[in-house]
């Protein structure tokens, strides 16, 4: 199995790098390709089984859009063909229509029907508790943007507490085939072991085992308890 991590030297903000560390623990025998920004992504020239990109700064985000633009069709084909993707934080915005920033419109790849509005002086931070299928998902948001567009039928998480695409939405993130995009930041695969198992299955792992299962599950149940507690601020 080939797992491609895109631009880990940049797309590693907010503890997202924990996801990669954890995947390596879960899949110690698989091939991890860490593609630097100076190189061409491996997925352009060959099939890979899983593509991950984490949160990045706003300047880097524009450079990533520029880099991806000539490969828009290839990315679309991979999504349509069922390649497994996980894009976290603002990585997902790269594939949307555009990003609005102080009157400026940054054109994105346009593979998904949403856009983002950026306000660098209004940072949103919060907790999210919701469901992906039957799986309880917990996570954190810290972002300068809010997303707008149609994801009622293509959301990743139906939120129970915390916000979705924007402050008026209960639908968080985007799912299409095996593409998972979410504004959640940080080590979401460690925080959500049941989703990690689901993702590993999608990647083709039979009866997946996750690393440090007992300890990770204990931390997960403790966090779930907190996130369900109405006294806890989200």
């Amino acid at each position, binding site marked *: 199995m080939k797992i491609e991590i895109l631009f880990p*030297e*940049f797309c*590693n*903000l*907010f*503890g*997202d*790098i*924990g996801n990669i*560390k*954890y995947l390596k*623990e879960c899949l110690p025998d698989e091939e991890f390709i860490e593609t630097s*920004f*100076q190189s061409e992504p491996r997925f352009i020239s060959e099939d890979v089984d899983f593509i991950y990109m984490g949160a990045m*700064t*706003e*300047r880097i985000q524009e*450079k990533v859009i520029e880099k991806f633009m000539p490969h828009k069709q290839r990315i679309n084909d991979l999504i349509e063909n069922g390649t497994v993707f996980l894009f976290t934080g603002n990585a997902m915005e790269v594939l949307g229509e555009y990003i609005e920033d102080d009157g400026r419109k940054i054109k994105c790849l346009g593979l998904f029907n949403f856009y983002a509005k950026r306000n*660098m*002086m209004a*940072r949103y*931070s919060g*907790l999210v508790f919701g469901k992906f299928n039957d799986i309880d998902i917990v996570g*954190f948001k*810290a972002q*300068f943007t809010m997303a707008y567009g149609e994801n009622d039928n293509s959301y990743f998480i139906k939120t129970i507490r915390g916000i979705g695409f924007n402050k008026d939405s209960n639908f968080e993130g985007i799912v299409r085939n095996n593409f998972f995009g979410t504004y959640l*930041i*940080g*080590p979401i695969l*460690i925080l959500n072991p049941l989703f990690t198992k689901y993702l590993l299955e999608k990647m083709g792992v039979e009866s997946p085992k996750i*690393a*440090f299962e007992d*300890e*990770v599950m*204990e*931390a997960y149940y*403790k*966090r779930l308890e*907190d*996130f369900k507690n109405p006294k*806890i*601020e*989200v």
Partner: protein
Amino acid sequence: MPKKSPRFYITLFLIKVITKIMRLLKRNATNLPGVVALKLCPDILAQLEKPKTIIAVTGTNGKTTVSNMIVDALEYNGYKFMNNRFGGNIQTGIISTLIDNTTLSGKIKYDMAVLEIDERSANRIYPYVKPDFLVCTNLSRDSFKRNAHPEFISDILNKYIPKETKLILNGDDLISSHLAPENERICFGISWEDDEESITDNIIKDIVMCPVCNSVLQYDFVRYNHIGRANCEKCDFGTLPIDYDVVKRDYENRKLTIKTPEGEEEYRLVGDNITDSYNMVAAITLLREFGLSKEQVNNAFENMKIVETRFNSEEINGKQLIINLAKGQNPIACSRACDFVRKHDGKKAVIMILEDFYDAKNTTENIAWIYETDFEFLNQEDITQIIVGGKRSSDYMVRLLMAGIPKEKIKCCTSETDTPNFLDISSVDKVFILYDLFNVDSLKSIQEQVKNKLLSGGNLS
């Protein structure tokens, strides 16, 4: 400066009364008076008189220590000035400090101020408080919630640092040394020493590519994280000339040698950590540029000590107890603390209380930052026990296991003050307590319990 309004005078009077009452009640009047003042008179910071000379200190790590060093040295040399050593460093803290040092008639009491200023608050402070000198210790990742990332913070500083401010910058930090490029600047740094160990295994590095031409930066040396000296392979971006360069650190004889524009100067070395040396050279550069002589600065440093709540080391019954501020939610500061522990010799136990006090009270902490922190540094044979206390200790268990630390070495408990119960002092020479800034109350209790345990030879539980 706008004319003082009647509203300003009423606010000033009310805030002085509030501050007095708070102090009578033995409450810290550091931020709240500023919060109320801002509500009553939204442009109060513009209307308040400012001292003629302002020295400001900002940066992600070390600003409190550097600020304290500058205050101590100036006081030692007989300067009279106001400062916010015991006050807040955000907009409301600065307002509280200014009001405290303003007469009822609206006159500022001092001609000079030394102010520690939160880097994220630049947009709210610098339009009104214009420093003559601004020291920036460094810029790196900090709280995700407030500070997002260093690029965001440097953009704010670039926009709001007044053009006339002389900058004192860390030349070994390629992010902060290039702040406000039009401003006059003096850089400090620490030269590479031959026997020094380069730390290249940090998880995070906040600048890897040239911000001008996007080429890879070639590092002459990396001290830790992105701290080091580098140049772009394609354009002229890189480390600036270092005006105050530490060329020798002699821990045995407690001497710091700095190459300055006036030749080599020797100062008494305070502290044992590389970050202590960075803090020292930052303060010395400011003081020398401000006009103090080498002798004036050195005499002040002769008796200086790092504030005890940030670092303390004592020997009890032949074993050492070391407390060290690690700063929760700040991956670089916390990684520095882990590096400090690993470099000590002997068998070691580490107690960690790093959870955010306020998050634990009101919400549940975003622990993502622990995946940017180099807990891998604690994975060595001579560290035999790691005890973590706090509501989120099960998250730390996972993180420490992922750092490769054997499970049998890790103990976790939900109450911070229970951590000493798990400490086995018989097998260790040193006990470290790494703590977050706002966990001082728990720290005191833990420190006391560990002391008792050491005094009794471990018989107390």
